[in-house]
């Protein structure tokens, strides 16, 4: 079971680069990269708020819960 961050999908649909998002949201590229690669252990409400604001989406669009199929 895992929570997936669909940041790359959201960026692709909005034709926005990670650099542009970083400038608009005010989060460093390295932190956004951690989030995009799914290496983050937690996400702050303020970060989620800023991302949803810039990407004009709901938290549910960014985060997705998937049941892990591997044993």
């Amino acid at each position: 079971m895992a929570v997936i961050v669909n940041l790359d999908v959201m960026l692709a649909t909005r034709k926005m680069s990670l650099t542009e998002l970083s400038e608009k949201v005010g989060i460093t590229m390295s932190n956004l990269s951690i989030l995009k690669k799914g290496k983050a252990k937690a996400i702050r409400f303020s970060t989620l708020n800023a991302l949803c604001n810039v990407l004009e989406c709901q938290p549910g669009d960014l985060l997705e819960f998937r049941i892990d199929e591997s044993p």
Partner: protein
Amino acid sequence: METKKAPRSINVIYWIINLFFWLAVIIIFGLMVDTVLFYTGVSNDVGLSGRTLPVNIKILETGELHHGDKNFTLKLKTTTENIEVVNPPRFITKKSALVNLLIFIISLYLIWIFRKFVKNVKSGETFSIKNISLLKRISYVLVGSWFVKIIYVQYLYFYITGHIKLDQVKILSSGFLYNLNLDLLWQALIIWVLAHIFITGLKLQQEKELTI
């Protein structure tokens, strides 16, 4: 990893540790030269070589206590004390010189590890794998030096007391319990626990760093 400028206190501690380290290096160098000169027969004595032996002794001395018009005979009790040989024979000095050199080298190694630890803290890497392993190493070396000390004192006891005969002092036992020197073990235990606290600190730091 996020690095911060070290506070002034850490810089001062690092400076003091550095001073101690280089002083220890000079002392050990001097001690090594002294030991070599002693072993080659150039010098007759070795500086900084201990000749004390903690033993359980009975002083065969009685005294008199005057109280009013009465006299009381007093006997001195058995005690655990350090006996110090003022003019030890060469074979004893040879052995104690080597052990002292070993103790000084272990002390230098401990200072060197602690210096590395403070250097890491100074550079902002307080909770790191490196510091955890350094702390664990300090505790293991302390336990090791405790063993060395215990073995050395027991060896000295059997070696010296087997051949020594004193008029007023009777050596009863090695004063093993007195000389257990649990301070070293306590220090080792505290540092080992500290290392485990640092492991928790590292986990918390990693979690903080991976919270976006």
